[in-house]
């Protein structure tokens, strides 16, 4: 964790808290987004966190960036911050120049790069309609390449997820990339795992917020003449929310620590599997405590639960990471306890 972390985090949280009201989150449903907070983030250098100084970055690290991403999840900030920063992460890690302005990315199969031209269709590309650049993986004779595409060259079919976030189909027909670079399978897998860390960050943020909203509601709301948090069955829900929130936050923090230590693939696998479990419990308990009011558009809870229900199916999810763990266990003759304590092969 870099030394600037506490400061950056404080600044980011203050900006988000002051500028992302429920109305701002709702902008998406009217076809707009939070340009104001985007501009503030640009001014305060939030986009250069974790970009190396050579590329004009401010010198923070990935953990700092993931913590800001977590906050954008906590405030459901309707802007492509995670997308733009991860797009630049992909560019940097494949030794290409980073870009300014709104960028998005896709690591799905679907693009083919041949004779210097890219064709294919990518479904559910985040924020495509608002993006200036797309960073994507494309198959080529040289192997997988990370390519940078000018969105002016793409055709877009608009669609959205159940949280009303833009998830558009992007169609490329013989488009020349602005740049491209071959990456190894290992690099590609690393990119997938960092993408998963971004999703874990976003989901952790939303979980934290749901916990706060729900506990607050349980104090204010009365039934049968008492605040509802005094009923045992509500207490059970609160305890379950607290437990899953604590585990999600701690999973996220451990993923960050593992990334710093460069040995993180299994942590990311465990964290993703565990946090998807948490989403089920958290969304269900939070809505049950809120009852009818939580099902209304006017009340803010759904801005976080709908995002969790969307985000948990984005990127590589629980079944993918389960398979990763299983393949590892089947390939290596490891003692389970040594595996869990990271002491495999040590005596």
């Amino acid at each position: 964790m870099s030394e600037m972390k506490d400061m950056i985090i404080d600044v980011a949280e203050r900006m988000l808290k002051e500028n992302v009201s429920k109305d701002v989150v709702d902008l998406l449903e009217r076809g707009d987004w939070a340009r104001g907070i985007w501009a503030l983030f640009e001014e305060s250098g939030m986009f250069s966190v974790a970009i190396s100084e050579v590329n004009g970055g401010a010198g923070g690290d990935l953990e700092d960036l993931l913590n800001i991403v977590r906050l954008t999840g906590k405030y459901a900030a309707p802007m492509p911050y995670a997308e733009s920063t991860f797009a630049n992460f992909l560019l940097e890690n494949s030794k290409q120049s980073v870009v300014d302005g709104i960028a998005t990315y896709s690591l799905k199969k679907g693009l083919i790069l041949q004779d210097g031209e890219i064709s294919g269709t990518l479904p559910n590309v985040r924020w495509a309609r608002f993006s200036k650049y797309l960073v994507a993986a494309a198959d080529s004779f040289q192997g997988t390449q990370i390519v940078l595409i000018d969105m002016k060259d793409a055709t877009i079919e608009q669609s959205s997820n159940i949280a009303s976030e833009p998830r558009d189909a992007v169609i490329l027909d013989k488009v020349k990339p602005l740049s491209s670079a071959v990456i190894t399978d290992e690099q590609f897998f690393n990119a997938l795992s960092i993408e998963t860390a971004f999703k874990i960050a976003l989901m952790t943020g939303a979980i934290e917020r749901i916990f706060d909203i729900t506990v607050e509601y349980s104090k204010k709301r009365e039934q049968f003449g008492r605040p509802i948090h005094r009923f045992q069955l509500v207490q059970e829900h609160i305890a379950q929310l607290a437990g899953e929130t604590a585990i999600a936050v701690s999973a996220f923090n451990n993923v960050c620590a593992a990334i710093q230590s460069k040995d993180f693939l299994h942590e990311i696998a465990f964290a993703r599997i565990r946090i998807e479990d948490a989403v089920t419990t958290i969304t269900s308990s939070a809505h049950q405590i809120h009852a009818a009011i939580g099902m209304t558009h006017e009340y803010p809870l759904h801005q976080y639960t709908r995002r969790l229900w969307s985000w948990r199916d984005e990127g590589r999810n629980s079944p993918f990471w389960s398979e990763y763990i299983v393949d590892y266990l089947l390939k290596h003759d490891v003692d389970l306890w040594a595996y869990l304590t990271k002491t495999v092969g040590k005596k």
Partner: protein
Amino acid sequence: MFHLPTVQFTEEQEAFRLEVRNFLQEHVKKGTFTPTVDSWLSGVDPSFSKLIGEKGWIGMTWPKQYGGQERSTLDRYILTEEFLAIGAPVAAHWFADRQTGPLLLRYGTEEQKQFFLPKIAKGECYFAIGLSEPNSGSDLASVRTRAEKVEGGWIVNGQKIWTSNAHVCHYMVALVRTSPFDGKNKHAGLSQLIIDLHAEGVTIVPIKFLSGEYHFNEVFFDNVFVPDNMVVGKIGNGWEQGLAELAFERSGPERILSTFLLLDELVRELKQQRNKEGLKQASKLLARLWGLRNLSIGVAKLLESGNTEDVAIPASLVKAIGTKFEQSIPEIARLLIETYPNLEANRKFDRYMAQSILHAPSFTIRGGTTEILYGMVAKGVVAK
């Protein structure tokens, strides 16, 4: 206490099931309706309701003199199952058929029965249920909407909330306070009135659902005049009347099948993939559905035999366990088949998934929360 009757459907009942199924499948093919998850609450389609009314499939257990068919409770059970399994848009007439009809048959005046029941049976007259009020939640006895006696009727003032589909309904059966609130006997002084939703002083304000859809409303009453002949049953007896209504309507197929479309699609996709391990997981869901359905049909059979005494506990259990089962389907399905839920997706699995996820939290809230049901069941079994 738990030995409910078992039911083996007769050949006639099976033939009726197939008749309904063929009719509905034909209309899906024709495009009369598009199947949706949770269609008994969100599938409002008055023209479909009229079509169903023409078939004699609304109020089908009622006396013929009021437009009914005098068919059995089990026939109605079969009909309802087929509607829900295919996701037919039966929401417009749902509450009139399930609740208002039986209420009027039990407590209504001859005039009320003659006036309302035939219209309901034709699929032309829809009723909303006016129970909840702002901040009342599960504490239904805290009703504040009041009716004051005047010459020839009652003047109603107050507000109902979470009223499903009030915007397409013609009337509401509202639980109102006809005597002042008595802290010692919160259930006294409540009465049921039929309120014309187009009467002067009634305002219906939509409440946007979290998905942006529109199912429920706030209904405001500002000096609404309700004539004496629109009182249901006895003044002051509203709590008992309303409670009976609730208890018998907890155990229908709508507490088991709200997300059946998704389960069906899950099994279809897994079969296409020949995904044996996934199907094994799904088989557990089928066993759960089978277990719930036995219980639910057993309750229907008990009701048909007129035994209402032993019904309350198993009916509450169907609701408590069934709605959790309905909720569990999307959570399990998403781990077995890759999906990205989207309300406008072409792929059925993604679309039903989106509908299921967004509607699911309601299942354990509407019609008595799971927490309230747990208390009722426990008190019931301890008292035996």
